[in-house]
């Protein structure tokens, strides 16, 4: 498992890709997330060759959509997970999964620095808490995300520490809605 002590600021690197098409920033993101996306796709049932192919597609999408990343609403890992998940659904020809209507992206939707920092910390706490879960519960959650447990097989996920992250994101959504009205 990966040490968190020297974690680079992935969100800042994504911003550099979006704003100045910074190749070095992208190379750092690629070195970290490319192998992780490939591992995720393999655990979801893809063979190594197609997982590597699709991981490259995902990283191309990361470059192209970097400007849509909002660090007030997700961490870099969370955002890249959603791109990889969508690619996995296409690749394994799973059921179509429409996205919800997004909140409009106005010029006011500039991420709040304080929100972004707090969300980062809470995401790190969630990661820690996930690692500290009893093995049986953690493996149930992994199987739900990777090995395709069907929705009826997913047990109730009580004990997952989602509370603070949820209220943080809700605050950010309320602020965003307010700025749009």
């Amino acid at each position, binding site marked *: 498992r990966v040490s968190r002590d020297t974690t680079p600021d992935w969100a800042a690197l994504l911003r550099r890709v979006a704003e100045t098409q910074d190749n070095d920033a992208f190379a750092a993101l690629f070195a970290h997330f490319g192998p*992780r996306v490939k591992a*995720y796709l393999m655990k979801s049932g893809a063979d190594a060759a197609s997982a590597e192919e699709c991981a490259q597609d995902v990283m191309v999408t990361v470059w*192209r959509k970097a400007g849509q990343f909002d660090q007030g609403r997700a961490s870099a890992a969370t955002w890249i997970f959603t791109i990889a998940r969508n690619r996995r659904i296409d690749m394994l020809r799973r059921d179509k999964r429409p996205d919800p209507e997004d909140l409009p992206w106005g010029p006011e939707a500039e991420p709040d620095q304080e929100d972004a920092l707090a969300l980062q910390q809470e995401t790190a706490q969630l990661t820690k808490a996930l690692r500290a879960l009893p093995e049986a519960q953690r493996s149930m959650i992994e199987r739900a995300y990777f090995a395709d447990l069907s929705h009826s097989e997913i047990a109730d996920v009580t004990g997952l520490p989602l509370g603070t992250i949820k209220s943080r994101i809700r605050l950010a959504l309320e602020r965003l809605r307010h700025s749009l009205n």
Partner: protein
Amino acid sequence: MSMITHHLSDKLLMAYSAGTLPEAFNLVVATHISVCDACRATLAGFDAVGGALLDDDCATMGADCLANVMARIKSGAATTKPEARPSDAVLPAPLVDAIGGGLDRVQWRAVGGGVRQAILKTSDKASARLLHIPAGAAVPDHGHHGLELTLVLQGAFHDEDARFARGDVEIATQDTQHTPIAEPGQDCICLAATDAPLKFRAILPRLAQPFLRI
């Protein structure tokens, strides 16, 4: 928005985040989240769980992968902007996408008792339909072999257990036997999805079932 009282379950939101729901249920979840910030925030939490799991394990990538990706990036379109997705006053964007237009584009078919339905095209693991129930009318008393999600888009209905208005989702399971009745005043429009045929008590709907595909 703050009026929604019946939400999606954590189980459904987690499965939607993981990407393992049948298409018909995905459509209900995406539509509910379009109008519900509480479930939108819970979903973001489950996406964060996915991000944490993604971050925890890695495979080895070929040495030329980065160069391949850079070549594709330089030769393709620079960036993509989010497209504006149309919606209307009753139908959030995921439904407008599924129908290929607004409420005026829905191809309704009468199913008896003044109730009309339109079956939406999804994978066959579960079915999705729009229901139009005249104000005051009832859907026949029925039980369920599997899971049924009913999301209210306009008007309101109640059954033996509770009242459901715009944005509310009723989650019915094998244990639920109910007769939803639309409230007087406004016709009720719902999106309903189920992964098993309904069980009707009365003989007539049971005979009609193969034709109505409910």
